[in-house]
């Protein structure tokens, strides 16, 4: 699904990713952990194609083709989805209209016919249940006046509607209380499937209690310092990141 080899990238002029290598197969959930400033969010943004980041080296293959050849909107149409840490408000743009336009852009890309407003409403209602999203919220303007938890829920709702192949969840747990976290995690778990890969970027182990990953990677100074199974997250919880920062990469 995704093959990242020796990726180097700058945020602005500052080198952040310094030789990151990662393979993600369909059906797998990979957690990316690490201290602040290690490059977790940069990785998420570079994969989605956010302006302001420059790839300076390495290669990323998505479904066996170079990802960086594609414009951000084309990546999305090809099935790359970024769930934002800080979802943006779109005043005046209704959630339903926004999502139907997005879904139809993806369908058009695949040569499929448009979905009309009535059929889409049925889809939206069904998917909203996955994250216990209030129907009123579904019909409101995108994230406008939403609480932090509602915004995160809306991200997962969008993911449910758009059915991506590769979902990147950027600090989806930040700012959520435990109930909201459980709801969001339950939604994500329902979307796990054989042909969908997920990269879950998080600072804390807490989220991984609810979204249990197949692999955990620790990102230190722009590189994967350590990889392991889900138990690695617990080890990090008790030991912190400091011991890894002092040792050279791969010494564990």
């Amino acid at each position, binding site marked *: 699904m995704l093959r990242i080899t020796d990726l180097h990238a700058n945020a602005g002029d500052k080198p952040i990713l310094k030789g990151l290598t990662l393979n993600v197969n369909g059906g797998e959930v990979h957690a990316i952990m690490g201290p602040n400033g290690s490059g977790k969010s940069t990785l998420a943004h570079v994969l989605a194609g956010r302006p302001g980041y420059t790839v300076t080296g390495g290669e990323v293959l998505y479904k066996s083709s170079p990802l960086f050849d594609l414009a951000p909107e084309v990546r*999305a149409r090809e099935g790359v989805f970024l769930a934002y840490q800080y979802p*943006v408000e779109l005043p*005046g743009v209704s959630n339903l209209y926004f999502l139907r336009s997005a879904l139809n852009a993806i369908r058009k*890309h695949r040569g499929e016919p448009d979905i009309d407003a009535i059929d889409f409403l049925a889809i939206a209602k069904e998917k909203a249940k996955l994250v216990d999203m209030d129907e009123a919220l579904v019909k409101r303007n995108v994230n406008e006046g939403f609480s932090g938890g509602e915004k995160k829920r809306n991200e997962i709702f969008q993911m449910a509607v758009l059915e991506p192949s590769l979902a990147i969840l950027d600090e989806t747990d930040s700012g959520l209380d435990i109930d909201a976290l459980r709801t969001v995690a339950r939604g994500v778990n329902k979307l796990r499937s054989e042909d969908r890969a997920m990269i879950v970027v998080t600072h804390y182990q807490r989220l991984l209690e609810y979204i249990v990953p197949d692999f955990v990677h620790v990102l230190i100074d722009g590189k994967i310092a350590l990889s392991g199974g889900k138990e690695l997250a617990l080890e990090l919880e008790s030991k912190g990141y400091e011991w890894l920062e002092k040792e050279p990469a791969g010494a564990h």
Partner: protein
Amino acid sequence: MTQTISAPRTESNRLLADLTSAEYAAGFVTDIASDAIPAGLSEDVVRLISAKKGEPEWLLDFRLKAFRHWQTMPVPIWARVHYPPIDFQSIVYYSAPKQKLDGPKSLAEVDPKLLETYEKLGVPLHERAALAGVAVDAVFDSVSVATTFKDKLHEVGVIFGSFSEAVREHPELVKKYLGSVVPYSDNFYAALNSAVFSDGSFCYIPKGVKCPMELSTYFRINAKNTGQFERTLIIADDDAAVSYLEGCTAPMRDENQLHAAVVELVAHENAKIKYSTVQNWYPGDKDGKGGIYNFVTKRGACRGNNSKISWTQVETGSAITWKYPSCILQGDNSVGEFYSVALANNRQQADTGTKMIHIGKNTRSTIVSKGISAGHGQNTYRGLVKIGKNAEGARNYSQCDSLLLGSNCGAHTFPYIDVQNPTAQMEHEATTSKISDDQIFYFQSRGLATEDAVSMIVNGFCKEVIKELPMEFAVEAQKLLGLSLEGSVG
């Protein structure tokens, strides 16, 4: 209180600048023989125009008084727009497509080239079933060339047709109302219009009649170096109601052309007038060459109690727009509304807004103004809310929102408030926003291209105004906004 905001420079501006502008679709010229008088303005020219139209003495007098007054007036310079001085002697004040002296009797007599022109513009002059809901008066340069559905309207007593025809057939009505809302001495361009106006639309809705279809006028400037000075007069008698639409386009030309219209509305007791405009005059090219100077005076008088006048405008065209559709709320409980979207892209300048003059008791007014600035466009909202000393219980709500696309444009707001009655209630809200890079990327990361992002944000921004337009017009306006912004922003 003034508020002047220029957008900061951001990353996306480069992107904005890279994209090219959409073509102006209505920019073609119709090759048709015209009967034009030489350029220049004098009393003789005023007399000539009046003679060409075979006007009665009282109308010539009105014109001459206006002309003499106009000569004493200075060119207004208070608007926040900049352009070289206009040479009023280089303008042709009358141009008409050649046709029979008293105009065509029916559509069958209208020059096919003219019909074709309106066909190309999407204006229905054939009374087709699909478009049976709208009656159209088509004004080409200085004259009205066709009016549809006249007979059907006549059955219910509605008078709708060209202004010249109204002067011939209903002189008592024209005489009674002409200049009663906008006197010839009102302002420089109103005085000019009063002296040289050539044609326009006239509409009278008799007592108790709800006009059975939308009425509309489509203005087209075609001839070169010609000014267009039309005059529209709409009267809704007691308990009458009408919805009126106005559309405008002009060919692409390198020189500027002047359009100085006057629109007067009169609403008697319990009458309702809804006046909608989609203005798409040629805006000039990317560098500001050419385009229409749109200097228009529009005013409605709510004369009777419980009357209502509602202005809705979507202004996407013209090099310069200078226009303040206003309401004089004389009757008790009368209502004035102003809903506006004004767009200034490339080098366009718009100084537009409204005046709500509260005179009667418990009068209410609502102002919703949405300004969009892109490219090097400069957009100004200028509005006056005046509550007279006898306007007990008057209320006004004003909302002025500005949206900036890119970093080289400007949005400016000049709200004037004059309250002379302590029982009045006023609310004023204003916002300025900019489409952020983060918003654009949010759309992209969901599979939507930059153009879709801009059009969805702009349409969301204008939603409150667009929903006030009659349905066919709303669709048209949305398309127009999309087209006018295409490629200019991101």
